C-alpha cells in the first residue's frame, strides 16, 4: 500500500514536469498546464503524509 502511495505521490510531480515541458515545446496550452499542475499538487499532498517519515532532525 505504501509503495502504491509513493508511486502516486511521485507520479503527481512527474505529470507536473511533463506538462511544463509540453508547454515549452508548444504541445500543450498554458491553461491545461495549470490544471495539470493543480492535479499533480493534489496527488502529492493527498498521499505524502501516509508514507513520508515524520521524524525531525532535532528529536533524532
Amino acid at each position, binding site marked *: 500500500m505504501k509503495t502504491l502511495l509513493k508511486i502516486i505521490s511521485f507520479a503527481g*510531480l512527474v505529470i*507536473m*514536469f511533463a*506538462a*511544463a*515541458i509540453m*508547454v*515549452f*515545446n*508548444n504541445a500543450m496550452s*498554458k491553461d491545461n*498546464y*495549470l490544471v495539470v*499542475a*493543480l492535479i*499533480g*499538487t493534489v496527488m*502529492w*499532498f493527498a498521499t*505524502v*503524509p501516509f508514507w*513520508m517519515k*515524520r521524524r*525531525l*532532525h*532535532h528529536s*533524532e
Partner: protein
Amino acid sequence: MPETAKSASWVERLDALYEYEREPIKEKDLHGWKIFWATFAGEHIAGTEFVIGPLFVMHGCTAVDVLLGLLIGNFLAVLSWAFVCAPIAVKTRLTQYWQLRKLGGPWLTIAYSCVFGIILCVLAGAMVRVSMTSIALPFEKLLAQPGMELGTLPDWVWIVLAVVVGSVIAVLAVLGFEGMAIFSKMSAPWMVTVFFIAAIATLPSLGCHSPGDFWRVANEKIWTGTVAPGMGKFTIWHVIGFAWLCNMPQHFGMGDMTILRFARKWQMGFCSCAGMYLGHYCAWVASGILCAAAINVGIATDPGPIAYLGAGLVGAICVVVAGWNVASPTLYRAGLALQVATPNWSRWRVTLVVGAGMIFCACIPALIKHLDLMVTTNALVILPLGAFIFIDIWLFPKLGLQSNLAEKTGALISWPAAAAWILAACFSIAAFFYKNCDPIFPIFLVLPEWLVAVALYIVLSFIQQKFLGTGQAVNKTN
C-alpha cells in the same frame, strides 16, 4: 532581586532551554549520508528563493554573472560547510550554543541569543511579507484598472494582511511547531518541482522555444545587465560573494553544528551541495526567469505575482507555503532565543510578543526589496562568533593557548571574545560609512570582518593567557 542572583537566574533559564542538547551526541545516534542529503536539500528551498533570484535581475547582472557567479559562490559555500563547519561539529559533537558557552562564557551566549532572536524576528517578518504578496493577489485583481492585470493595494490593506497572516503564523508557531516542521519537510520536493515547472513553462513567453534559444534569451531578456531604479549594480564578484555569504551564519558562523554533529564523518558536510545547487542555483535561476517574464508583461516582481504568472494557483500556493514554512519555525526559534531576556514568561507569551515584532517588520515593503542587505547584515553580526569557535578549537592548541577557557575558569564572559566581537562589528560599521553607506558594499566586508575578528581574538587571548596569566593559572590547577 540582587544583581548576581538575577544574572544567575538568566543564565540558568538560557541553559535550561538548551538542556536536552548539552551532552555530545553518542555513537548510536549518528546518521549516514542519506539524511544529510535530504536535510540540506529541504532546508535551502524556501520563500527567500522567490526574492533572491529576482534581486539578481533587478541589480543588473548579466547571464554570465549569474550562471557562473552562482556556480563559484555556491562551490565556496559547500567547501565552507565541508572544511570549516563539519570537522568542528564532528570533533565536538556539540551545538554552536554549547561550544560558544565553553569558550565565551554564559553572558556571551545571552548576548548572542538576544541578537540572534532579533535577526530571526526580522527574517520571519520578511517571510510573512513573501506570503502576503501571494495572498494579496485576489485583492489586487479586484482593484485592477481596466486593461491592467493587477491593481495597487492601499497601505492599510497591507497592514491588515500583515496582522492577519502574521497572527496565524504566530499561533501556528505556538500551537503546532512540530506539525509545521513536518509539513515543511513534506512540501520540500513539491516546492522544488513548482520552481522548475514555473520557469520551464514561462520561457516561451520570453521567446525561448528550444534549449538552443536559452543563452540568447538569458542575455537579451532575463539577465540583461540593466539596473532597476533604486538598486545598485551587481558584478560577478557580488554574485559570488552573495552566494557564498548568504549562509555564512550556518557554515562559517557554525550554526549548522546543530545538524552536522549527528554526522558519522566530516565529509558529510559536502551534502550541503544538494541545498546549494538545487535551492541556491536552480531555484534562484528559476525565480530570475519568472521575474524577467513579469517585467516583460509589466506586472510587479514580487514573489506572489511572479509565481502566479509561472504556475497559476499552484505557484501562488507555493509562495504561501514557502513563506509559512520558514516564518513559523523561525518565529519559534526567535521566541526560544529571546526567552532568556523575559522574566519567567512562558514560551507561548514570548512567541506572541516576538510575533508582534514580526508583524511590524512584515509591514515594511523594503524588507524583501533589500533582502540581500538584510542577509548580509545577519552574516556580519553572527560571523565573528563562528570564527572564535574555529580558532579556539584548531589554532589555540597549536599556539600554546588554552581552548574553552571560560568553561575552565568558570568566567561569566570571555573578555577577548566579547571585545573582538564588538571591535570587528565596529570595523564593519566604519568601513560601511567610509563607503558612503553603499548598500551593496557589505557583501565585500564579510571576509575582512572574519579576518579582523580572528586576528583580534588571537591577540586579545594571547594577552589574557600569556601576559595576564589566566591560562597559566588553569594549567597549574590542572
